[in-house]
């Protein structure tokens, strides 16, 4: 009964739930209602007089001559008393969290205990913290909803760090928690999870890191983490407290997240908008680069509108999402190389506007070369001007920024300027039509029908197979996607990766499917990436997340192979064919067998002729609610690959003197 009362007082169960719970213990309904009455009066009293430990909620000042002030209950603020673990759970609920992605942590026992009577907070057990964090990040990206990933102390945190790094680079608002033991009652005794200042390990890769100093500060710390993570530019936050706090009882306040969230949306400086608009309307050939802030701001249609107004070609450099419809006549394709100069068209833009792209540079050469006037519109103001000369910086939520810029451009457009824009649009469209025809030639490769399959053939077949609104989660680093015609306005969507910690793909796909159960989700993953994070397959099987996973299995790290040759051209490695770092075969890994071990059906596909039937089986499985994995044997292509790659001659067999 004590637990029931506590649950009712903390608003974790309803009146009906309280009565049901009590009658199940043998108490009559009449007696239960009497108990409820007395409990309710306690509840009201608690609501009227917050506990003194935390700062009291603000109340209206009493007016002169009025009755003695009785602090009124404040909307969105709930007094709460319970263990630290229960405080944690309560605040997560108040912060809008539905899913907790976690790996077993014995010091979080009171949190687990609190979950029993809080079914609205669902715990997803992930067998490894890395894919678990990727799953959480995938869910957050696909749903736009908050989630938390939690691990056991520093040991679990260390496993999650790779995906925290990815979240940091791609600016995903992932909140992470793990307890610490270096300030607990058993501190300094070389405990198996103890390290000093564990939060400092993740500080460089999080937007915000903080420790709760007392049990009653757990909710406040949680709120602050979500506020920091979800205030643009987004990014991961890490919170921790010493493990004893989870067990101690505290009186505190649980506050709805919307009461503390600044909901920051910044409008751009009107003077800068005017300058940008003038540059764009007067440009001979403007070019727009689009980026993920557009998708995050739900502003794709606004980007389309601005491009159409100006007859402006549109491109994108590496991002997570496809941020512009690839079938649109103004789309001129992704930048194939490291800079705009590698675009076939336009060759000589005189004004370039970037809307919401982080512009990842992997070399000293700037993506936007010196020459064109450059307008940079982003909420991530910290990196504006880091590399490129920036004529007009526009710090803004890109949704507002595009609204204001479009209005300013419309105000400046004369009839002759509109004519110029229309003529330019015709020129861009003409290029686009020709480009699509040329790109379609990919099927003419002399290797098209070969076995093992070439990656382009596999991609082509999947692009023909995928639903019109399929979501493609792509972690096949050396595979270029084509044929999908991504369209964030109701068509196919892309979830690529931005940072380079491998093993995110399968977890991300699981999280995306959790968030979008009514869209087909296909995960394309290289064998090297897959093997870093296959444990999320188990989550797919357990949660019945019908994802199709396609492994591009060339038994190699293709990317590092090529880049190493580029770094040491003509060197001894190339001359001898001795590459120590890239060949994953001999023995060849059987990814379908690995999938079966996690409870996911799958098969190995050796030739192009087998693909259609394999994909059909995958569809049948997903229709029935089951995930499916295709281990597609893909050819190794590129400089320096031998049919049978050299393997470093480390032979322990020669050292064995006993058959043990």
């Amino acid at each position, binding site marked *: 009964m004590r637990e029931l009362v506590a649950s009712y007082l903390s608003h974790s169960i309803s009146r009906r739930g309280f009565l049901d719970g009590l009658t199940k213990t043998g108490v009559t309904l009449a007696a239960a209602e009497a108990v409820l009455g007395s409990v309710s009066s306690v509840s009201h009293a608690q609501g009227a007089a917050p506990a003194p430990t935390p700062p009291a909620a603000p109340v209206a000042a009493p007016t002169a001559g009025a009755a003695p002030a009785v602090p009124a209950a404040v909307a969105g603020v709930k007094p709460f008393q319970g263990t630290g673990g229960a405080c944690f759970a309560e605040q997560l609920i108040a912060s809008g969290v539905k899913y907790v992605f976690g790996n077993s942590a014995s010091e979080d026992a009171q949190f687990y205990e609190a979950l029993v009577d809080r079914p609205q907070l669902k715990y997803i057990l992930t067998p490894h913290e890395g894919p678990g964090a990727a799953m959480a990040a995938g869910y957050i990206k696909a749903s736009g909803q908050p989630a938390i990933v939690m691990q056991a102390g520093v040991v679990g945190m260390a496993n999650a760090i790779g995906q925290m790094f990815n979240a940091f680079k791609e600016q995903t608002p992932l909140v992470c928690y793990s307890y610490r033991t270096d300030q607990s009652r058993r501190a300094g005794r070389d405990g198996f999870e103890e390290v000093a200042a564990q939060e400092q390990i993740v500080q460089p890769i999080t937007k915000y890191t903080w420790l709760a100093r007392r049990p009653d500060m757990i909710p406040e710390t949680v709120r602050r983490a979500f506020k920091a993570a979800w205030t643009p530019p987004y990014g991961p936050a890490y919170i921790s407290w010493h493990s004893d706090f989870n067990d101690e009882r505290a009186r505190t306040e649980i506050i709805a997240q919307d009461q503390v969230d600044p909901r920051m949306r910044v409008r751009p400086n009107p003077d800068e908008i005017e300058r940008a608009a003038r540059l764009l309307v007067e440009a001979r050939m403007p070019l727009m680069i689009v980026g993920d802030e557009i998708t995050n701001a739900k502003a794709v249609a606004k980007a389309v509108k601005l491009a159409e107004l100006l007859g402006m070609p549109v491109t994108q450099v590496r991002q997570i999402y496809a941020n512009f419809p690839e079938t649109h006549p103004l789309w001129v394709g992704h930048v194939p190389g490291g800079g705009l100069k*590698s675009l076939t068209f336009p060759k000589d833009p005189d004004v370039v506007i970037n809307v919401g792209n982080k512009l990842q540079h992997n070399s000293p050469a700037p993506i936007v070369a010196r020459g064109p006037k450059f307008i940079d519109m982003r909420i991530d103001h910290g990196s504006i001007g880091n590399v490129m000369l920036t004529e007009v910086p526009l710090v803004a939520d890109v949704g507002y920024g595009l609204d204001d810029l479009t209005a300013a451009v419309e105000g400046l457009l004369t009839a002759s300027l509109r004519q110029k824009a229309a003529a330019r649009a015709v020129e861009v469209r003409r290029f686009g039509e020709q480009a699509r025809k040329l790109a379609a030639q990919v099927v003419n490769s002399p290797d098209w029908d070969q076995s093992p399959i070439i990656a382009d053939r596999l991609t082509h077949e999947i692009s023909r197979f995928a639903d019109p609104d399929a979501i493609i989660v792509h972690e096949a680093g*050396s595979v*270029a996607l084509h044929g999908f015609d991504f369209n964030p306005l109701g068509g196919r969507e892309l979830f690529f990766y931005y940072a380079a910690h491998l093993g995110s793909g399968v977890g991300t796909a699981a999280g995306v499917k959790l968030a979008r159960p009514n869209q087909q989700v296909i995960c394309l993953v290289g064998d090297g990436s897959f093997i870093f994070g296959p444990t999320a397959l188990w989550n797919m099987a357990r949660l019945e997340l019908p994802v199709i996973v396609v492994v591009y299995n060339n038994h190699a790290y293709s990317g590092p192979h090529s880049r190493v040759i580029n770094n040491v051209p003509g060197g001894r490695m190339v001359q001898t064919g001795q590459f120590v770092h890239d060949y994953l075969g001999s023995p060849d890994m059987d990814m379908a067998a690995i999938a079966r071990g996690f409870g996911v059906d799958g098969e190995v596909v050796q030739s192009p002729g087998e693909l259609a039937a394999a994909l059909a089986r995958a569809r049948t499985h997903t229709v029935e609610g089951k995930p499916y994995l295709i281990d597609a044997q893909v050819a190794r292509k590129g400089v320096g690959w031998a049919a049978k790659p050299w393997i470093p001659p480390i032979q322990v067999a020669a050292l064995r003197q006993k058959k043990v």
Partner: protein
Amino acid sequence: MTLRAVAAASAVLAVWAASAAAQQPAAPATPAAGENAGRAMVMAKCFQCHTDAMFRDARQDRRAWEAAIYRMIGRGGLWTADEIKVMADYLGTDFGPEAKPAAAPAR
């Protein structure tokens, strides 16, 4: 793990491209008098993304070069069938299995 840090960048080409942009002089768009048309085309089309390293190190027949060019179409390369033929002819001859490797540049 270093491998993790290195392994994933999608663009084999992206790194090459960027370094190419930093290192390579602008390639001629049209062949000079007496210059091989295929060579001029490779210089104009491929060096937007690649350095000469891959051409020095790759020795393969015409068919394999043609397949390599088609792979680049999948990565955004835009060429006509005639251009592909001219480039494959040139590469299959000058960078075929029997062609002598060029010396590595001093680094």
